[in-house]
């Protein structure tokens, strides 16, 4: 064992980089398949990023590149300030990755596996491990080979967070968990955020769950970044407008560029809009002499609008 000659690598005084991950025009090609196409983005430290996209959009590939498990075909990525092809123990010990389907040593019991993984990390937090085992109801005496998909996911989470990473990457971490455990997992993640100012990137189809804790949204579609905004900004710019004709006159045609979709009859129209202009609805109502009622959209409702590359220009027939 190394005598503690240089207290530098694990010292908490190591300045935290302000950007947890950067991608500079990264492209990833697997054989015939292009998983990512010239992706450029920054993930600022301390945020909880929701990585959204349909199946095959490139979410897992991006997370694997961030974790250094695979290298981009072209372009460069930096994780915790270090180019990902040069990642070494100072970064790797501060990186947590919870994979969609964790690969474990199947003959070990959960307790053995935790001890095994802990032995690689100088900062492993045994108290945290103990607490999370109880909180997430992890069956420590059973062999990995015998666990249900949900319990395997819980073990993956424990192995990903107990060394208290500075950057935590989670790839569909909740798909097999029941709603109670999902809720507890969110508490666990928030606690990491409060105690360690950990940066969290979480890909999930369960938008209702992630909506509670994410503050930033990155959406991918067929390997490209189609959205990269704070959740507050998205929520304040997307809306559904119910437009009514006040008198007998039919509704006029609406051609404003901020209209993403419209469904309409002569007397009633339902528009989805994206505008950061706070008075847009009032201005619209006055301009067209119509009544407008606005409603904000949930992440679930925004999602199809985010990944529709172009606003559906097809004016729906009356």
């Amino acid at each position: 064992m190394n005598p503690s000659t240089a207290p530098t690598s694990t010292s908490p005084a190591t300045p935290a980089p302000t950007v947890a991950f950067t991608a500079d025009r990264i492209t990833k090609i697997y054989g015939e398949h292009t998983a990512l196409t010239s992706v450029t983005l920054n993930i600022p430290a301390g945020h909880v990023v929701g990585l959204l996209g349909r199946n095959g959009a490139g979410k897992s590939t991006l997370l694997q590149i961030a974790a250094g498990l695979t290298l981009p075909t072209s372009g460069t990525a930096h994780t915790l300030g270090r180019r990902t092809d040069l990642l070494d123990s100072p970064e790797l010990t501060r990186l947590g990755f919870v994979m969609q389907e964790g690969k474990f040593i199947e003959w070990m019991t959960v307790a053995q596996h935790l001890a095994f993984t802990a032995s690689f990390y100088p900062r492993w937090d045994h108290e945290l491990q103990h607490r999370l085992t109880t909180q997430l109801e992890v069956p420590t005496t059973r062999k990995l080979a015998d666990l249900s998909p949900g319990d395997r996911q819980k073990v993956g989470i424990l192995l990903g967070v107990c060394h208290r990473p500075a950057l935590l990457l989670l790839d569909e971490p909740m798909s097999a968990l029941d709603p109670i455990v999902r809720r507890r997992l969110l508490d666990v993640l928030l606690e990491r955020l409060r105690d360690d100012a950990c940066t969290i990137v979480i890909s999930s189809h369960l938008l209702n769950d992630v909506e509670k804790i994410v503050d930033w949204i990155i959406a991918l579609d067929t390997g490209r970044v189609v959205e990269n905004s704070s959740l507050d900004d998205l929520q304040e710019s997307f809306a559904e407008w119910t437009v009514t004709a006040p008198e007998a006159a039919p509704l006029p045609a609406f051609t404003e560029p901020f209209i993403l979709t419209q469904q309409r009859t002569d007397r009633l129209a339902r528009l989805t809009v994206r505008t950061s202009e706070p008075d847009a609805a009032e201005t619209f109502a006055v301009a067209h002499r119509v009544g407008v009622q606005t409603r904000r959209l949930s992440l679930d409702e925004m999602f199809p609008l985010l990944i529709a590359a172009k606003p559906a220009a097809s004016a729906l027939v009356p």
Partner: protein
Amino acid sequence: MPPLLVINPHNGVPAYRQLMDQLKLQIATGVLPAGTELASTRALSAELTLNPMTISKAYNLLEREGVLERRRGQTLVVAERSSGDAESDRLAHLRDHLATAATMAAQLGITRPQALRIFRETLDATAAKSPPAP
């Protein structure tokens, strides 16, 4: 501790905005009198399962609006307000709600005298149900 804060993460209104609105309402209605200490960002984040950045964003904006103020030792408290300010806050809350009703009245083609009559009747019905004001 501000009691009874409920954030709905799915109604599309940003969580910081919901938090600001609810705190303002509690202050306007006197549930949180001037000088009341607010829960720390940490504590409230744990209680509401919310990102701590969301809480500090709401607190910072309320502080900038003069609704909250920092005391020695960084404690955040409900700011002292003149009775005139408190009054105009309360009126602003009511005005917001009535704006929605006014839009609805226009859409339904309800005339001005009809709408005013309905509001008067609603006030009477509410007064009949609640205990007499002191």
